C-alpha cells in the first residue's frame, strides 16, 4: 500500500470518529457545529501527555477522551435548554472559544535540546510517539481501524438495544418521549458526553498520526464537514456517516477527480442530498426496508 493510500485511508478512519460524534448529536435531534472542539481537546491533551510527559499512548488517549467527555458534559449542561439553531450557535461559539484559547497556549519544555509543546498559532510539533516507538504509518492505520471497529461495535450494540430506541425517541419527539417516562435531559447529556469521547478519541489518533497539530486544524469547517457526513450518509444507522466520509475523503479527495474543485463538488452533493434525501442516503426508511429484506431472505 503506497504512503498516499495509507494517508488517505488513515484520514478517513480518523475523520470517521468526529463524523460519528456529530451523527450521535443528529440522532438525538440536535445540530452541533462544535464537535471539532472535542476532537481538538483530545488531540492536544494526548499530544501533551506523550510528547511532553512521556506517557504511554493508550493512557494519554484515555485521558484525552476523558477530558473531551468532561468538556462535553459541561457544554451539554449549559446548553440543555437550547435547541435548534440556538443550540447550533452555542456549540459553534464554544468550539471557537476553544480554538481561540488554544491560540494563546504557550507551554513548552526542553527535551533533548528541543522545545516541545503547544506554541499558540505556531502549532504543536514534535508529537513523536510514532517515531520513537518505530510504528509505521500502516501499523498506526491498523490501530485507527481497530479502534473504529470497536466504536462501531458499541454503536451497533446500542442501536439494537432499548437504549438506542430511547435515543431515537428523544431525537424524534422529546415531548412525547418525556410523556412516556423518558428523562430527556439525562439521555441528551449521555449522548452528548459519549459523542464528545468519540471525537476526543479521533483527535488523539489524529495528533499522533499527523505528529503536528495547530489550533486552526480544528476550525469550524471541520465541524461543518463532520455534520455533513452524517447528513449525506444517512441518519438511519452508524454506517451512514462512514459513507459520507468515504464519499468526501475517499472519493472526492482521494481519487483526485475533482482536484481543486473538491469543495464545490462536496457542497453541491450536500445541497442535492438535502433536497432529495433530507435524512441522507441510509435514512431510517431505507434501513427499515433493508432490515425487512434481510429478514425475508
Amino acid at each position, binding site marked *: 500500500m503506497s504512503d498516499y493510500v495509507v494517508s488517505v485511508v488513515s484520514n478517513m478512519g480518523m475523520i470517521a470518529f468526529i463524523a460519528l460524534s456529530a451523527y450521535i448529536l443528529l440522532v438525538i435531534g440536535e445540530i452541533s457545529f462544535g464537535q471539532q472542539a472535542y476532537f481538538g481537546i483530545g488531540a492536544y491533551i494526548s499530544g501533551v501527555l506523550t510528547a511532553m510527559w512521556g506517557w504511554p499512548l493508550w493512557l494519554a488517549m484515555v485521558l484525552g477522551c476523558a477530558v473531551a467527555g468532561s468538556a462535553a458534559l459541561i457544554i451539554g449542561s449549559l446548553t440543555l435548554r437550547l435547541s435548534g439553531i440556538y443550540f447550533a450557535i452555542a456549540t459553534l461559539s464554544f468550539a471557537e472559544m476553544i480554538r481561540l484559547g488554544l491560540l494563546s497556549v504557550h507551554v513548552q519544555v526542553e527535551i533533548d535540546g528541543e522545545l516541545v509543546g503547544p506554541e499558540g498559532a505556531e502549532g504543536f510539533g514534535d508529537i513523536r510517539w510514532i517515531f520513537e516507538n518505530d510504528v509505521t504509518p500502516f501499523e498506526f492505520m491498523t490501530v485507527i481501524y481497530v479502534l473504529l471497529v470497536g466504536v462501531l461495535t458499541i454503536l451497533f450494540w446500542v442501536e439494537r438495544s*432499548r437504549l438506542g430506541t*430511547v435515543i431515537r425517541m428523544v431525537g424524534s*419527539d422529546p415531548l412525547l418521549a*418525556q*410523556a*412516556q417516562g423518558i428523562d430527556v435531559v439525562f439521555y441528551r447529556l449521555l449522548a452528548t458526553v459519549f459523542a464528545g469521547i468519540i471525537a476526543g478519541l479521533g483527535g488523539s489518533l489524529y495528533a499522533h498520526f499527523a505528529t503536528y497539530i495547530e489550533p486552526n486544524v480544528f476550525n469550524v469547517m471541520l465541524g461543518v464537514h463532520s455534520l455533513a457526513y452524517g447528513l449525506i450518509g444517512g441518519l438511519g444507522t452508524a454506517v451512514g456517516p462512514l459513507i459520507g466520509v468515504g464519499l468526501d475523503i475517499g472519493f472526492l479527495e482521494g481519487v483526485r477527480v475533482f482536484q481543486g474543485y473538491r469543495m464545490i463538488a462536496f457542497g453541491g452533493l450536500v445541497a442535492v442530498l438535502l433536497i432529495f434525501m433530507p435524512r441522507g442516503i441510509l435514512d*431510517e426508511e431505507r434501513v427499515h426496508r433493508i432490515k425487512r429484506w434481510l429478514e425475508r431472505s
Partner: protein
Amino acid sequence: MLSLEAICKRFGDVEVLSGISIEIEKGDTVGLVGPNGSGKTALINVVTGMHGADAGRVVYGGRDITGLGSHQISRSGIARTFQNLRLFPRMTVLENVDAAHNGLPGYNLYQLIFGDREVDKNHRQKSEWALEQVGLANERDRLAKTLPLPQLRRLEIARILARDPKLVFLDEPAGGMTQAETEAMAMLIADRVTPGRTSIVVEHKMSLIARVCRRVCVLNAGILIADEKPDVVFNLPQVIEAYLGRRIVNA
C-alpha cells in the same frame, strides 16, 4: 384517585385556567368538554407536567405531583394521548408501541443497554397483544408515518394499553374522524381503555362522550361551569349557551 385543587394557569396576560377544582374517583370515566380555547388541553398539560401550574395543587393517589416533570408523572402511572397526534413516524407500528415500555420504572440504564430477556419478552408480548386489541396486528411492521389517521389514533390507544397506566387522558381521540370511525373509536375506548382504569376524555363529538363517560365536566374560558352526568349536563342552560347553543337551535 385524582384531585385538582384550584388550578390556575396563565400564558402572558391570558388566564387559561381560573381555579379549576375537580375530584375524580378511581375507575371513573370523565368527559372534559368545552369550546375551543376553553382550557381543556391546558388542564391536561398541567396535570401531566407539561406545563407548570401558576397556583393550585394536583394530588394523584394521595401524593402531591404538582411541579413534577412529565417523565416523573408518567412513571407514576399516568398516560396521555395528544390532540395533535404524536408518534414516532420513522419507527414501525410495533416499535412505537414497544417503545412506550422504555420509560417504565422497571427499566434502568443497564437494562436498557444489555436487556433483560424476561422483561423484554413480556413487554414485546404486551405490545403485540395491544396491537391485536386495536386491530393493528397486521400492520406491525409498517412505518408509523405510512398509516392513515384513524389507524394512527388507534396506535395511540395501543400505546396506552401496552403501558397499562392507572390514569389515562385521551385528548380528542376521534379528532378528524368520520362518524363511523368515531363510533368505532368510542367502542374501542369503552371496551378496551376505560374498564379497570380511571379515564378523562376530551372530545368535541358528544356522541363519543355520551357513549363513554359517566360524568362530564364543562369548561368555558378557563372556568368550570358544569360537572354532571351526561344526560343532565347537555341540558343545562349555561352549557347550552356556552357550548351547545347552535346545535340545540338547529335541532
